[in-house]
């Protein structure tokens, strides 16, 4: 069943799907490759920063807080981008919840 981020409790710790392959191609971009389907998603620098935080130790608020520290603050557009990315990663099965 496709999961959406809205289905997840706010304190759910998010983890990257270990079956996906992250290819860091350039300084600020990466490919997220699913060998099972062949699908490829492109992550920009923000996406890459988010992906690296999906280690199963942080919920959404903690991920956002970490990014604010890392980038010396996030404007509203950036926070929306991060929220949208997390929503998409969960929706496509690239990220899930630690049990």
């Amino acid at each position, binding site marked *: 069943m496709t999961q959406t981020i809205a289905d997840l409790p706010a304190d759910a710790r998010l983890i990257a799907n270990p079956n996906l392959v992250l290819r860091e191609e350039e300084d600020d971009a990466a490919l997220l490759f699913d060998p*099972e389907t*062949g699908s*490829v998603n492109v992550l920009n620098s923000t996406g890459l920063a988010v992906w690296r935080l999906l280690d199963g130790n942080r919920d959404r608020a903690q991920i956002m807080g970490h990014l604010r520290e890392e980038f010396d603050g996030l404007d509203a557009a950036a926070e929306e981008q991060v929220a949208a990315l997390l929503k998409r990663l969960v929706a496509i099965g690239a990220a899930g919840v630690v049990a």
Partner: protein
Amino acid sequence: MTKLMPTPRTVDLELTSRCNLRCRYCYYMNNEGVAYEDMPTERWLALFEELGRAKVMDVCLSGGEALLRPDFFELLDGVVRNRMRFQLLTNGWPVTAEVARRLKATGRCNSVQVSLDGSRPEVHEALRGRGSFAPALRAIKILQAEGLPTTVRATIHAFNIEDLPALAQLLLEEIGLPSFSTNAISSLGTQAKYGDDLFLAPALRLRAMHVLAELDGRYPGRIQASAGPLAEWKMFHEMEAARRNGGTIPGRGRLTACGCIYMRLAVRADGAYIPCCMLPQMVLGYAGRDSLEEVWRNAPQFNALRERIHVPLSAFSRCRDCDYNALCTGNCPGTALSAGGDPNRPSDEGCLKLFQQALAAEGLSLW
């Protein structure tokens, strides 16, 4: 230099130098300076682990005839285990329903390409050998029945040009493949060693272009070509249109070739790293001895090849006054080396100017 990705996305693996066929135009066999030996299972598996660590996304399995390896599925398990997908190139002879089932079961197959040069035995077997047609056709049907993405590669030569419409009908209508691709004989391998009588004479090359262009119109988007008469037809017309309009084509005018060396490299059956199958003699290192990433980034000959894109075609005497020198890629360094002895100059194969001159000598024209 164009910024290079940290590791190749795709690696072409010539799993074996063995083949059950002796096609007269084979680019693979009979290349001077190439060791036709096979790496053992464990060395291939170790290489796949290295490819996995390097985040290579997919591999293209070929040979020779890759399915002849008794450990083929053990090697395929290694590809799968290291999180890669694969394409398989085959002459089709070893393909059985069981082979197709096992390929499908991996869930990682991008496609299987079967070589088929004609719609009937006498055409296909003219240069591929007696008895090779039925197994190839059978393989296509078996693979398709198993639900595997199946395609065909037809190499264009003097004996199959007039059969191409029948081949297209067979593949695209009767069998129902989504597409097939075409190629041409190159100046490598068996063809180079044993004579050049198989190259298409100018008139036949033009005829092949016309036949394929007509088929391309009849089956839009279903006949692919990265080399050979159809690819040349399209490229030559693109160049001529740009010339007439006084326009430019981005990335042209220098020795840019196809650009594959920025995204992939190849491994010979004996473990030698090579830039691609068209440069089999250019050994960059050896799997197991040399780091893939180190070879990819720092092999001197590899980086010298990549520097070709900075060489303007106008630097070459033959190209200097050519109307198309700002619109041309200089074509394949592999054929420049095999036919002319130097990979760092334009290749005669695929040269529009030379082709036009040859046609004019026979009272013909491209346009």
